[in-house]
């Protein structure tokens, strides 16, 4: 009888351990689920950064913005992206005043998951200017 009573306590301990392991495993599952949902947005944000950086690496981006060549800017962005990606680009000056008077985009948005990247670029010309370029990307369903 004594032995039986003692075993009951041990079983409770084992139960408690199982419960804690369950608790731990459920906790580890939560961030993994969140990461899956953010993967496509992260990829789009990374693509947006890469596109803007490659255009800015030789000063081409700032020269297009300085000359307000919006059509050329649209063509450059369009040719850098896959046709399956929707984009919308907005150019701001230092005071966050929108500069582009025409929309620079590839049509209307088709997905509710849009990645937006703010890119700060500085001009190389002696007439110094800093622009903030906001590039929004979404996947076409």
């Amino acid at each position: 009888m004594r032995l039986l009573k003692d075993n009951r306590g041990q079983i409770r301990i084992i139960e408690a351990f199982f419960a804690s392991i369950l608790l731990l495993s459920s906790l580890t599952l939560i961030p993994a689920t969140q990461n899956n949902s953010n993967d496509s947005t992260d990829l789009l944000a990374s693509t947006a950064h890469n596109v803007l950086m490659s255009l800015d690496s030789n000063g081409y981006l700032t020269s297009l913005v300085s000359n307000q060549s919006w059509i050329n800017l649209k063509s450059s962005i369009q040719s850098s992206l896959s046709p399956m990606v929707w984009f919308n680009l907005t150019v701001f000056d230092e005071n966050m005043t929108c500069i582009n008077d025409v929309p620079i985009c590839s049509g209307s948005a088709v997905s509710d998951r849009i990645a937006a990247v703010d890119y700060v670029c500085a001009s190389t010309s002696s007439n110094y200017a800093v622009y903030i370029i906001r590039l929004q990307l979404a996947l076409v369903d």
Partner: protein
Amino acid sequence: MKTRHTSRRNSGQVLIIVSLIVTMLLLSTALYIAETAKDVAVYEAEVEPAFSAYKLGTMNTIISALSNISNGGSKDILVADLNRFNSVVGNHSFNTIFKMEFTPFSMAPYQGGVWIDWGSSGKGVSSAYVSFILNSSGTAATCYSEYAVNITSELDVSGEYTLLNGTLKQVTVTCTVLNEGQPALARNFTVYYEQDGSLSPEEWVQVASPSITDYGNGTYIISFTAETTNPDDPLLVSVHCHDLRYIFIKANATCTQV
């Protein structure tokens, strides 16, 4: 006997509580490690793509400032432009606290991060040198980067001439344009020569339409005819150049007779 029986029945509960405490300790340790790992600054963070953009921005800012200074602007523009860039970046880093520290290089020959040397030895230099420390603290990670940007445009000039008749001389000047020590292309050249070969007073004559041969590798051959006051006057040439970044460089040289 009753006391012994109660303590024996409670021993299981105590063990459960102990096991829960151990679990809590394990959890808090795991959380502590995760949080500490998040706070450790990542050097040369490739995890923060904005860092590369900021580096590019600082480089473009220095090119702009050097272009301004070499074309007659104030040297203060370098610090002013970098502060302007820093301010814009700081105001538009929404999910991170961004901090940029910069130090213009002040060891000789640099002064306030700028070195302009347009000497008479056939070599002209326009250069800017600034070191940076970038720090960003975000919800995901803390990033750190330390680097220096050196923008240098250099012009090397050497020349020779042959006497034509009287005071006329056929001059051939070889120019080499370098950006950061690498051959680079020039946007334009303006060539002058000293009328009497003496710099007191300076009487520079601009060559109207020199013949310029571009070898495409940063080397240019400039040919022209010069007329000095006397046939024996030494021939001093001054070549002014803008590189493709619109940075101005000037170099003076004395041509040798062949």
